[in-house]
C-alpha cells in the first residue's frame, strides 16, 4: 500500500470515529433540536463527503477536488460540536460550522479541475471564506448564544466580548451579504461554464451543477428566509431538504469527476479517431494514386504493344513485303532477262540490309542488349553516339546496378534525348548519372528552348510511372528559353 493510500485510510478511519463522536454529542445534547435531523445532516453530509472525497483523492491524486471534498466532509462535523454541552467545544463548533459552505463554493466553481482559473472564481471563493472564516470568528466573539431565540439550553460563550450586541448583528448582516454575493457569483460562474462547455464537458458538469445548484438555492432560501423570520415548519422542510441534497452532493462530485476521466478518455479517443481518419484518408489517396499509376502502367504496356505492332508493320514488314515482290519479279525475269533479274536481286539485297538495320534498331528500342551485357555506362555511350544532338556524358556509374534500376535510368535518358532531338532545338545535351545517398540520380540537361510541358506527352508520363514503380521520382524543369532539365531519383541501396 502506498504512503498516500495509508494516509487516506487513516483519514477514513478518523472520519468514521468523528461520526460516532458526533452521534454521541448530538444524542447527549441539552439544546440541539431537532436532534435526529441534525445527526442525520452531520452523518449524511460528513461521511458521504469524507468517504467519496477520500475515494476521489485516491483515484485522482493530482486533482484537488478529492482533498476539497474530504475537507468539506470533516468540516461538517463542526455542526455536531455545536450540540456539545461543553462551552469550549460548543464555541469551536460555532466557529467552524459555516466552513463547509465556503468549501462547497470552492468545490463548485473549481470543478472539475480543482483549480481556480479566473479572477471571478477567486473573488467568489474568497468572499465565501471571508464570510465563514474571519467574519464568523468576529461574529462568534460578540454573540451570546444563550440570548438567541433558537438556542435554549446552549452553553455560555466562553470568549464573549459583552456589551456590543450591535456588532454581532452588523457582522452577521455582512456575512449574509457576503455569502449571498458569493453564492450568486458561483451560480453565475457555473451557468457560464455550462454555456461554454462542449457536449462531453457537459456530461461531467451536469450532475454537479444540478445538485450544486439545488443546494445553493436551498442555502440562499435558508439565509434569506432565516433573516426575514420564517415558520418552524418551513425551517424544518428546508433543513430536511438540505440534509438530503448535501448527502447527494458528494456523489454528484464523484460522478462528475469519474466522468471527467471518461470524458478525457473520450477526447483522447476522439483525437485518435480524427488522426485515424486522416491516416485513412492519406492511405486512400495513396491507394488511389497507386491504382491510377497501375492503370497507367497497364495502359502503357498495351500502348507499347500497339507501338511494337505498328512499328513492325510499318517498318520491317513493309520492307519484307517489298522484298518479296522484288524477289518474285527477279525470279520471273531470271530466264528472259538475266540482267534485269540481277539488278532486281541487288535491289533486294539492299532492301534486306535496310530491313535488318531497322529490326536491329527496333529490338534495341524494346530492350538494349548492351545494357544487359555491359551495363549502364556503355548503354549511355551508345545513346550519346546515336543522338543527332551532341551529348556529353558527364558522369555514369561504372558498377552494375539492379536490372530494373539500370533499365529505368536508361529509358529516362533515352526518352529525354529523343525529346531533345525532336523539340528542344538544343546544341548540346549533358547526361549525368550518379549514385548518391542511396539512390541513382539521373539528370539530362539541354541548352535548348525550354518550355516543355511534362504533362502533355505520354513519354515522360510513362517514364514517371516507371520510376515511381521503383519508389523513385521524376521532375522536369523547363523554363521558357532556359533549356530543359529532366531529373530522376531512383532508390538504389
Amino acid at each position, binding site marked *: 500500500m502506498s504512503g498516500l493510500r495509508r494516509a487516506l485510510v487513516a483519514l477514513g478511519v478518523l472520519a468514521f470515529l468523528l461520526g460516532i463522536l458526533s452521534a454521541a454529542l448530538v444524542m447527549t445534547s441539552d439544546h440541539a433540536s431537532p436532534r435526529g435531523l441534525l445527526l442525520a445532516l452531520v452523518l449524511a453530509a460528513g461521511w458521504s463527503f469524507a468517504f467519496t472525497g477520500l475515494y476521489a483523492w485516491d483515484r485522482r491524486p493530482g486533482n484537488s477536488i478529492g482533498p476539497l471534498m474530504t475537507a468539506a466532509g470533516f468540516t461538517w462535523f463542526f455542526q455536531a460540536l455545536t450540540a456539545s454541552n461543553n462551552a469550549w467545544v460548543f464555541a469551536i463548533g460555532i466557529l467552524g460550522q459555516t466552513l463547509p459552505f465556503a468549501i462547497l463554493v470552492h468545490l463548485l466553481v473549481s470543478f472539475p479541475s480543482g483549480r481556480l482559473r479566473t479572477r471571478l472564481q477567486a473573488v467568489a471563493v474568497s468572499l465565501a471564506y471571508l464570510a465563514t472564516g474571519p467574519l464568523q470568528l468576529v461574529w462568534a466573539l460578540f454573540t451570546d448564544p444563550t440570548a438567541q431565540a433558537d438556542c435554549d439550553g446552549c452553553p455560555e460563550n466562553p470568549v464573549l466580548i459583552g456589551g456590543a450586541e450591535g456588532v454581532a448583528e452588523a457582522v452577521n448582516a455582512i456575512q449574509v451579504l457576503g455569502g449571498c454575493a458569493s453564492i450568486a457569483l458561483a451560480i453565475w460562474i457555473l451557468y457560464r461554464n455550462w454555456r461554454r462547455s462542449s457536449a462531453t464537458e457537459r456530461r461531467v458538469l451536469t450532475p454537479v451543477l444540478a445538485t450544486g445548484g439545488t443546494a445553493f438555492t436551498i442555502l440562499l432560501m435558508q439565509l434569506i428566509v432565516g433573516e426575514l423570520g420564517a415558520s418552524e415548519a418551513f425551517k424544518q422542510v428546508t433543513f430536511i431538504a438540505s440534509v438530503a441534497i448535501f448527502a447527494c452532493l458528494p456523489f454528484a462530485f464523484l460522478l462528475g469527476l469519474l466522468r471527467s476521466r471518461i470524458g478525457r478518455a473520450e477526447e483522447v479517443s476522439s483525437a485518435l479517431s480524427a488522426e485515424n481518419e486522416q491516416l485513412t484518408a492519406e492511405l486512400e489517396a495513396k491507394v488511389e494514386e497507386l491504382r491510377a499509376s497501375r492503370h497507367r502502367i497497364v495502359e502503357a504496356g498495351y500502348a507499347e504493344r500497339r507501338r511494337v505492332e505498328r512499328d513492325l*508493320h*510499318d517498318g520491317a*514488314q*513493309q*520492307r*519484307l*513485303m*517489298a522484298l*518479296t*515482290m*522484288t524477289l*518474285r*519479279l527477279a525470279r*520471273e*525475269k531470271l530466264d528472259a532477262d538475266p540482267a534485269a533479274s540481277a539488278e532486281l536481286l541487288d535491289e533486294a539485297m539492299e*532492301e534486306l540490309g535496310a530491313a535488318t538495320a531497322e529490326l536491329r534498331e527496333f529490338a534495341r528500342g524494346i530492350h538494349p542488349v548492351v545494357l544487359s551485357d555491359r551495363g549502364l555506362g556503355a548503354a549511355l555511350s551508345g545513346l550519346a553516339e546515336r543522338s543527332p544532338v551532341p551529348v556529353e556524358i558527364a558522369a555514369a556509374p561504372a558498377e552494375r546496378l539492379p536490372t530494373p534500376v539500370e533499365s529505368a535510368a536508361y529509358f529516362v535518358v533515352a526518352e529525354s534525348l529523343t525529346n531533345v532531338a525532336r523539340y528542344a532545338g538544343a546544341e548540346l545535351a549533358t547526361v549525368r548519372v550518379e549514385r548518391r545517398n542511396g539512390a541513382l540520380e539521373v539528370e539530362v540537361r539541354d541548352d535548348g528552348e525550354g518550355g516543355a510541358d511534362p504533362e502533355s506527352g505520354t513519354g515522360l508520363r510513362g517514364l514517371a510511372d516507371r520510376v515511381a514503380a521503383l519508389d523513385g521520382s521524376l521532375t522536369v524543369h523547363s523554363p521558357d528559353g532556359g533549356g530543359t532539365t529532366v531529373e530522376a531519383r531512383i532508390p538504389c541501396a
Partner: protein
Amino acid sequence: MPKSVLIVDDHPGFRASARRMLEASGYAVVGEAADGEAAIAAAGSLAPDLVLLDVQLPDIDGFEVAARLRGLDRAPEVVLTSSRDRADFGDAVAESPARGFIAKSELSGQALAELVG
C-alpha cells in the same frame, strides 16, 4: 488495252515495288495515292479500271474507301491488300464491295489476274 490501275498505300516503298510488279505483269499504273481521301479524289479524276487498295491507311480505312469508290460514276474494281492476313479482318473483307483480297506477301500479277481477269 492494258487495265489501268491506281495504287493506294501509305508506304512509298510498297507503292514502288507494286508499280514495278504490276507494270511487269502488263498493267498500266495510272496513279498512286498515299491515303483514303487522295485515293477517292484520284479515282474520280483518273477513272482507273482497278484500284489496288491497302486496308490500313492513315486517314480512313480501306473498307470505307472501297464503299465510297463504289458510289463513283465509273466505279473501279477494287482489290484489297494488306501485310496482314485476310483472317485478321474477320468478316470485313467478305462484306466489303471489293472484288477480293490479296495478302501483300502473295501479291503478284498472276494472283491479281486470277481475281479480276
